[in-house]
């Protein structure tokens, strides 16, 4: 089926939002939304009155004031704009199954095969205009077979344009290709003003001119192909996400811990029921406590495995409530589960011995993590490297193990590795020969047995060229203590002076 894409462009998104917040009366005055920059305030957007008075976006405020002294300013809110756009994109899914953001002020909706629900594409566009106008926004909308073409039509085409596959966009200016200003400047200097001009050129010439521009916005050929539908253009759809949320408003602000525990238990019960209905378990839980005097206390806990066990949730959060200052009282408590994972309903073991008598492994890990912090509980995972200290990483417990090549049995590794190899002074018979005795942490060790060397070369793809190779020795001293030492480098390897010795590991 032929793809159809709807593009909506809110030309004055920032001003429209400001007007909706400030009211129509404020809009009668010339107003500019400004942002602070390193060179003073700059105008981000202007309303119609200000534009008539001569102010423009991207102007310095001082320049604009010189033209229009009565200019009123308000701060721009780009974060709010983008959040609004995200909500708008979700709302725009009323016209198609998925939508994507087109920052800073546009939305793209896939309307393939849905126009008949609205009585044809023209009727669909009319509906779009009506709905958006009802929200008090100024918008342009167009339908084409690619996102690029729809964008070009909304920004540079007629109102309510519908592009059929056989229509041509050759008359639109090159700016309709969504290119960077610098590239547009180059094209203008080359005398290429319309899309048709570029399309008429021979492809190899353009390819050569822009051969090292890989970003679509810097390469007119890629943009042209996207516009024509010759190459796909990936878009990131917006997906609505609703976090399970339960809350309790309290008739009387609470100031005592027992009451708070009671509220917490109720919330956890509600949350467990909600999660059970959704067939999910929470991995992260947030508890927000709203105080009478306007303070908000947030406590966040994370779990090693998804869970909807109310008792477990209560246990985890209760440990974090000791330092909560209730002030004049807490009037509202709210529990949210921003990170959930599917958790099937399972029947408990008939002889659910483990659950009744002890804690499960995940619960045990949660309790330890809750107390000791994320770094307090770790599991070693192998990592693909032959440098000993890089061959393992500490990860969260219950992390699935990645498949890796096992250690070869003849590599005997120590059971403990020092955080950082410690320099030792070694006596040896010959500089390249076996060590005889060494001094480590002030004690002298006679070496009774030596096994080695095992040579480990540096990872040249990762390290500097001056990194020296290591010759590892397993040694045993006169009292039977076993160590793993290495000599960094060889004499005359051109990577430093005399080789140094280090102690890195301890055997059993």
């Amino acid at each position, binding site marked *: 089926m032929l793809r159809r894409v709807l593009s909506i462009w809110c030309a004055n998104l920032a001003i429209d939002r400001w007007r909706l917040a400030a009211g129509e009366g404020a809009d009668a005055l010339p107003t500019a939304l400004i942002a602070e920059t390193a060179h003073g305030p700059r105008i981000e957007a202007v309303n119609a009155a200000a534009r008539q008075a001569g102010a423009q976006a991207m102007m310095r405020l001082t320049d604009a004031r010189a033209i229009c002294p009565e200019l009123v300013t308000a701060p721009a809110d780009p974060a709010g704009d983008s959040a609004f756009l995200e909500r708008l994109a979700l709302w725009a899914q009323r016209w198609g199954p998925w939508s994507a953001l087109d920052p800073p002020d546009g939305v793209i909706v896939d309307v393939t095969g849905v126009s008949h629900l609205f009585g044809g594409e023209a009727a669909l566009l009319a509906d779009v205009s009506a709905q958006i106008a009802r929200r008090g926004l100024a918008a342009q909308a167009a339908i084409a077979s690619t996102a690029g073409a729809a964008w070009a039509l909304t920004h540079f085409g007629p109102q309510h344009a519908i592009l059929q596959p056989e229509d041509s966009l050759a008359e639109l200016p090159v700016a309709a290709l969504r290119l960077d200003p610098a590239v547009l400047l180059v094209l203008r200097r080359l005398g290429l003003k319309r899309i048709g001009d570029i399309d008429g050129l021979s492809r190899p010439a353009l390819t050569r001119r822009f051969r090292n521009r890989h970003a679509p916005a810097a390469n007119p050929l890629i943009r042209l192909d996207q516009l024509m539908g010759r190459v796909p253009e990936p878009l990131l759809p917006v997906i609505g996400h609703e976090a399970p949320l339960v809350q309790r408003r309290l008739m009387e602000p609470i100031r005592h811990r027992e009451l708070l525990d009671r509220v917490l238990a109720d919330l956890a019960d509600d949350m467990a029921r909600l999660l059970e209905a959704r067939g999910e378990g929470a991995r992260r839980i947030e508890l927000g406590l709203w105080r009478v005097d306007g303070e908000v206390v947030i406590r966040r806990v994370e779990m090693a495995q998804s869970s909807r066990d109310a008792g477990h949730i209560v246990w985890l959060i209760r440990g974090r409530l000791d330092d909560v200052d209730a002030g004049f009282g807490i009037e509202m408590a709210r529990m949210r589960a921003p990170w959930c994972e599917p958790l099937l309903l399972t029947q408990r073991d008939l002889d659910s*011995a*483990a659950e009744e*008598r*002890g*804690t*499960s*492994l995940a619960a*045990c890990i949660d*309790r*330890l993590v809750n*107390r*000791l912090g994320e*770094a*307090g*509980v*770790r*599991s*070693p*995972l*192998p990592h693909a490297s032959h440098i*000993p200290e890089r061959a*393992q990483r*500490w990860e969260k417990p219950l992390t699935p193990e990645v498949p890796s090549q096992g*250690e070869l*049995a003849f590599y*005997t*590794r120590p*059971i*403990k*590795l*020092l*955080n950082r190899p410690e*320099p030792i*002074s*070694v*006596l*040896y*018979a*010959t*500089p390249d020969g*076996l060590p*005889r005795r060494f001094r480590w942490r002030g*004690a002298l060790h*006679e070496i*009774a*047995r030596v*096994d080695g060397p095992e040579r480990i070369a540096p990872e040249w793809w990762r390290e500097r060229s001056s990194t020296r190779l290591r010759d590892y020795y*397993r*040694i*045993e*001293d*006169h*009292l*039977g*203590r*076993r160590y793993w030492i290495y000599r960094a480098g060889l004499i005359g390897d051109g990577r430093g002076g005399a080789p140094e010795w280090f102690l890195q*590991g*301890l*055997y*059993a």
Partner: protein
Amino acid sequence: MSVTREAVMALKQAIEGIGRDGARRFGGVERDRVSVGIPEIDQILGGGLMHGATHDVMALTPRDLSAASGFALGLVGLLSPREMPWVWIRQDAAGRELGEPYGPGLAGYGLNPAKLLLVKVPNAKEALRAAEESLRCQALSVVLLEPWGDPKQLDLTATRRLSLAAEESGVALITLRSGGHSPLGSSRTRWEISAAPSRSETEFEVGLPAFLGRLVVNRQAGAGGPGGEWIMEWSHDKCLFRQANSILGVSAPCNGSAPETPSLPHLRCAS
């Protein structure tokens, strides 16, 4: 006199019985004992090392801590099936001074590093708390507790508490300590470990890890003797200890008679 001894033995038996009944009443799983690998020790222990009990491993001197931790890891290997997770609780200071556990090395030692949960705690109090929390979890097989130094928090009450928790859940607790005046508590066995030279043909190879182990306390049910002293080797492929007494006489270091000072002209010191 003999009457007194008999009375004491009977009382001991009765106390044993209370403990075991208690374990059942609290729902502790009565698992089999595990063999240490040396028949003589198994017999003295009354049939092997007990699950769900506390075992103390003491380093004879602080310098023997590596050997003691090797022995303790051997006990973990005995008590922990390969697919069951186990916990190693260490104080931060131990990691700084003696190094962190090394997965490839543990794998070579016969353990499964993927099942290790390393719990790092800032102080002895947190270590005890973490140990008690872990001992409640029956999905674990062994909890290895390594406090740093000789903390006074690990007193009689605390060890008794931990032992009860271990008996209740059937998770074995191994405490690894470096000497000190640690009270006996209610451990079933206590081992004093020092490093021993390994057995090898030449001085150019290092044999299996060897320990000089002394069983100083043996209070396991059905214990067949007070204790003893052995040179043990850890055989990582069988995951069992092996007696190496036969080498006592010949295990002197090969160049132990080297002169104290480097008088030979070709000896040079690299620093």
